């Protein structure tokens, strides 16, 4: 598996970025942190736009920066696609010319992505002959993504490309970003401070705070780890699962999802059977039951789980880390913990009151 290894130590008058990074590059890696945590600076370092003595960066087997040996490839010599917060389209060119700007500058044998592909994925066919200033913000950002893709990059860097858009446009664009990754297999590094974007996009999360690396790992590990729970604000995510659509029950308005042999119901989705969807569960929506309840219950979603760990949260509540084939957290009261006598290793049933598809999540 290819890896990205980087070390940067950059001092600014009011800010100090000091980060060592070693992550697999497959999938979507989200750099997450509050504003001012150095996400954008780190991304600019990865692109070679910010330099500092001692900087080092290696992608797969290619060293792009090794300041110890006085070496730093400029951005235009790196196979990187970069999408900035603002679209930064060239106003003196049409949409088509913007898209072809980078495409024309790479050797033809390195062109793995065609303009037809990009136009289809991003849905920008009808915009091609327009002038830039006639486009909406969302349209401009789609063109900017397309323009970057057409350089057939080995690594795609996205710096909060949705930050300047309203919620509706965001929801329009997020599936595009997911799709372009799934269809074109380009590793993506995505800067965001929006938890909803993480939940929808991330395979892996890198947490930053005040210019320092707080932690890094697979999305579910990071979300369910006690160590990082403060990093996500008040939202207490219990789990994010990539489940498969098993069947639809239109008469009840429900869709059944399968995850590692267990089943979950969500509201009816217009997604084909066999397709993958990502759902999340808040830890406060999970309650625990010992042994199967004989009497019927109105709760539809009941998962078999094993207790892994019990973590103190505050005076009245604890988090119970469960294994359902993936980590899942249940937030319960200390009183319930004592009444049930829960212990690590114990088998329980997790009753889940609500399962949300990520599109439904608002901040």
């Amino acid at each position: 598996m290819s890896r990205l290894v980087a070390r940067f130590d950059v001092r600014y008058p009011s800010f100090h970025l000091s980060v060592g990074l070693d992550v697999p590059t497959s999938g979507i890696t989200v750099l997450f942190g509050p504003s001012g945590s150095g996400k954008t600076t780190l991304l600019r370092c990865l692109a070679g736009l910010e330099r500092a003595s001692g900087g080092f960066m290696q992608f797969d087997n290619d060293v792009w920066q090794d300041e110890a040996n006085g070496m730093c490839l400029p951005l235009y010599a790196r196979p990187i696609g970069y999408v900035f917060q603002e679209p930064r389209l060239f106003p003196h060119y049409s949409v088509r010319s913007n898209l072809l700007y980078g495409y024309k500058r790479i050797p033809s044998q390195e062109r793995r992505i065609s303009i037809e592909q990009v136009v289809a994925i991003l849905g920008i066919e009808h915009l091609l002959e327009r002038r830039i200033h006639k486009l909406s913000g969302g349209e401009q950002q789609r063109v900017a993504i397309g323009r970057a893709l057409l350089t057939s990059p080995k690594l795609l860097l996205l710096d909060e490309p949705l930050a300047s858009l309203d919620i509706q446009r965001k929801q329009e664009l997020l599936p595009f970003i997911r799709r372009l990754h799934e269809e074109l297999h380009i590793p993506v590094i995505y800067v965001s401070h929006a938890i909803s974007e993480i939940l929808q996009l991330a395979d892996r999360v890198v947490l930053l705070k005040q210019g320092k690396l707080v932690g890094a790992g697979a999305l579910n590990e990071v979300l369910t780890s006690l160590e990082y729970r403060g990093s996500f604000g008040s939202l207490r995510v219990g789990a994010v699962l990539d489940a498969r659509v098993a069947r639809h029950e239109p008469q009840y308005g429900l869709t059944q999802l399968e995850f590692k042999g267990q089943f979950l119901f969500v509201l009816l989705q217009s997604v084909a059977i066999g397709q993958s969807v990502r759902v999340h569960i808040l830890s406060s929506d999970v309650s625990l039951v010992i042994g199967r309840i004989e009497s019927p219950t109105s709760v539809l979603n009941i998962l078999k789980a094993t207790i892994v760990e019990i973590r103190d949260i505050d005076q009245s509540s604890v988090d119970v880390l469960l294994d359902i084939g993936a980590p899942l957290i249940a937030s319960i009261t200390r009183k319930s913990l004592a009444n049930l006598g829960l212990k690590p290793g114990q088998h329980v049933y997790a009753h889940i009151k609500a399962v949300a598809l990520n599109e439904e999540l608002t901040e």
Partner: protein
Amino acid sequence: MTEMDLSALWVTLRLAAMTVVVLLIVGTPLAWWLAHTRSRFRPIVEAVVALPIVLPPTVLGFYILVALGPYGPLGRLMNFTLAFTFTGLVIASVFYSMPFVIQPLQGAFEAAGKAPLEAAWSLRASRLDAFLTVMSPIALRGYISAVVLGFAHTMGEFGVVLMVGGSIPGQTKVLSTTIFDHVETMEFAQAHAISAFMLIFSFLVLLGVYVANRRFPIHVS
């Protein structure tokens, strides 16, 4: 117009064109540096560039004459003098018209910022490629202002020309000095003709610049 007036017009146009060409070549990197540097020397360089706006042209002309003359540093170095030659006049005009070319360019580069260039680099454009295909078109209004103002300002110079170039017909005699000569010899009709021509020309040039730049301010002090 007499033949001498026509020859003065020709010298003037050549001088203005040469000056603008030299200033665009020298001025583009200098304006770019001024627009983006964080160097503490920046205000000093900016002040030097703006000096010709406030300095009496004769002062500027005097120092250039001394520098270019046979006993000046340049004259000794090259062992010949550029004073009272067309080349010397171009050198003097370059200094004299510098702020009128540098400042619009600097303003245009500052307004554009580095963002479009970074975008071009991320699309595999080398530094020169990115500058030519992205920054120059974005700064086009600045370039138009620079060319027009630089050209027109060079056409109107008098003191510097007189000091450095003298008034040698066909070589360094330009329209503004021709007017002076006509007045001295009481040829008011000829003086009128050239003066009116320059007045209307200058007005039309400025009108053109302001109409073209209504939405983009020209940065000239």
